[in-house]
């Protein structure tokens, strides 16, 4: 059993850390995040210049290569400073390069992957609908109707991150009602976000600011056959590996939050003085700091285990779900302790604890609620399905 990152990953991690400290330090992230509805194009361009959009895109398609662990290392290092803004990179990485790379036709890969790798294409995701996100299939009212040369799609999607600046929305729609089970007859589309019939409005929210979360209304939007991802009607079977990847990425983002919280808290308790000494000398404060470190290491081990399994092509749904639950709950708890440690400064918009807390809070309810993830974990452990 080896708990060390490989030499290649260690070198990559070090380079990313230097890049983050210089190009996207925490005060830069705070400033971007203040402007809730201004998408940070400059940050996108920095990722392009660094080659990060090409991560996990095979070199033959102009990418940087790399596997799931590489993706996790980058996600974690970015999030240590950027918090939720890391989705500016992450969304296209998993909804674009990962999905097209796994399920795209050769033509789609040749057409899309090089443009993803060089930062030309942004992806959003459209699964959740106004009537439900946890029970995606139960709430799925968006319909795709087969027409000559493609499909006509109508419906409403919500919480589509960065849809207002996206080129494509990875969209889930029902294309066949005449099916024995509800997970049959659904299809995935690479929907042109600028197509006629697409109407996008931004939503306001607690955290994850500046990346823009949107409601997307679709009225008879035409999607050509060439932009159907995978086999029509069989999308649900394809989604699982993508969802596992998404859960691991959330886990890695949470590890980054835990890193950021720990380093900020440590720095503060060594400097802040009360009753004639540094507050880091008080036992209660030391207990809080230790708690954060314990949580960080547990989350790290679980996320890297899940990523290792996915890399090895082994089943990892259970482990990915567990990692997501543990990492997200720890990230929120750690940021909350961080606010307690920093006191008023932790509540201040001029420091990062509150930003970490607001961003991490999403990951307890998305992309799957931890309650629903627990149901899935129980089922994987052999208990009867509870939903």
């Amino acid at each position, binding site marked *: 059993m080896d708990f060390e990152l490989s030499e290649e990953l260690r070198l*990559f991690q070090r380079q990313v850390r230097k890049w983050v400290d210089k190009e996207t330090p925490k005060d830069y992230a705070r400033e971007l995040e203040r402007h809730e509805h201004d998408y940070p194009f400059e940050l996108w361009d920095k990722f392009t210049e660094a080659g990060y959009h090409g991560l996990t895109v095979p070199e033959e398609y102009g990418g940087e290569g790399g596997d799931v662990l590489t993706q996790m290392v980058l996600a974690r290092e970015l999030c240590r400073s950027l918090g939720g803004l890391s989705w500016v990179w992450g969304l296209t990485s998993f909804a674009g390069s990962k999905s097209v790379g796994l399920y795209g036709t050769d033509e789609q890969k040749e057409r899309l992957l090089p443009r993803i790798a060089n930062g030309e294409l942004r992806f959003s995701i459209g699964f959740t609908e106004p009537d439900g996100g946890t029970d995606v299939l139960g709430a799925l009212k968006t319909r795709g109707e087969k027409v000559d040369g493609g499909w006509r799609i109508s419906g409403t999607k919500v919480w589509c991150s960065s849809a207002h600046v996206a080129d494509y929305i990875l969209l889930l729609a029902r294309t066949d009602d005449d099916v024995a089970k509800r997970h049959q007859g659904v299809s995935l589309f690479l929907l042109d976000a600028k197509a006629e019939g697409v109407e996008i409005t931004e939503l306001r929210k607690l955290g994850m600011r500046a990346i823009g979360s949107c409601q997307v209304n679709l009225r008879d939007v035409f999607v050509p056959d060439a932009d159907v991802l995978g086999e029509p009607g069989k999308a649900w079977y394809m989604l699982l590996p993508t969802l596992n990847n998404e859960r691991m990425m959330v886990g890695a983002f949470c590890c980054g939050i835990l890193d950021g919280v720990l380093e900020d808290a440590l720095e503060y308790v060594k400097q802040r003085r009360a009753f004639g000494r540094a507050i880091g000398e008080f036992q209660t404060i030391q207990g809080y700091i230790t708690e954060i470190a314990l949580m960080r290491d547990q989350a790290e081990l679980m996320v890297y285990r899940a990523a290792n399994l996915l890399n090895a092509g082994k089943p990892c749904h259970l482990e990915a779900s567990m990692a997501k639950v543990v990492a997200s709950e720890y990230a929120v708890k750690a940021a909350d302790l961080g606010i307690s440690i920093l006191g008023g400064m932790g509540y201040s918009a*001029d420091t990062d604890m509150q930003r970490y807390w607001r961003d991490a809070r999403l990951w307890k309810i998305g992309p799957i609620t931890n309650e629903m993830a627990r149901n899935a974990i129980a089922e994987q452990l052999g208990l009867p399905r509870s939903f």
Partner: protein
Amino acid sequence: MKVLVTVKQVATLDDRLDVERAEWDLNSWDAHAAEAALELGDEVVAVTVGGEQAREALLTVLAMGADRAVHITHDGPLDPLATARLLAPVVQREAPDLVLCGAHSADALNGATGVALAALAGLPRMAAVKAIEVADGAATVVREVEGGLVERLRVKLPALFTVQANINEPRYATLRGIRKAASKPLEVIAAEDIRPGAHVVATTVPPKGEGAEMLTGSAGEVAARIATIIKSKVAG
């Protein structure tokens, strides 16, 4: 033009002085030297002296774009002259047009290895340069000297320069570069038995003085506190 760059993997120690848990990384001045070498050279050879951890310094420079590397393996501390004595045979064998070194290392701060290497290799040298231009077998270098003066010098190549951090912005190694680095030639040479002329007896954290006040808070709060301190000192 063939450029040889010497690099060092350095440890960042905190107050605990625990080398076992130290973060190791390429000396930042050497990253600037490597960047300059890559900008100037058609062929770049990176050389280091050190233990197993020093290999990562070479891999980093290979990932940035160097063509090949030489690792002179040696465990334990060395002083600048001893290090230069190990580097000199490689410099003489490679016969580069230009040798670049960081002005000093972040851990030892001697600023002497490059200078000693120039003497041993019989090369003209300029220390702490901040710009290099090469044309017609000669280099024009710029140095900042005492009093804010800027010195411009012309040196016939081959020569050795130690470079300052303001010479350039080192590139980041990409994932693709890191992967390529693993397959580039990396020659390992066991160091000759060499005894440093001086060795570190102890490294300690200096005792904390009185009178320092760490200011925390928002920019406004910190500024207000600084103003109060200045007023109390000046008025007092």
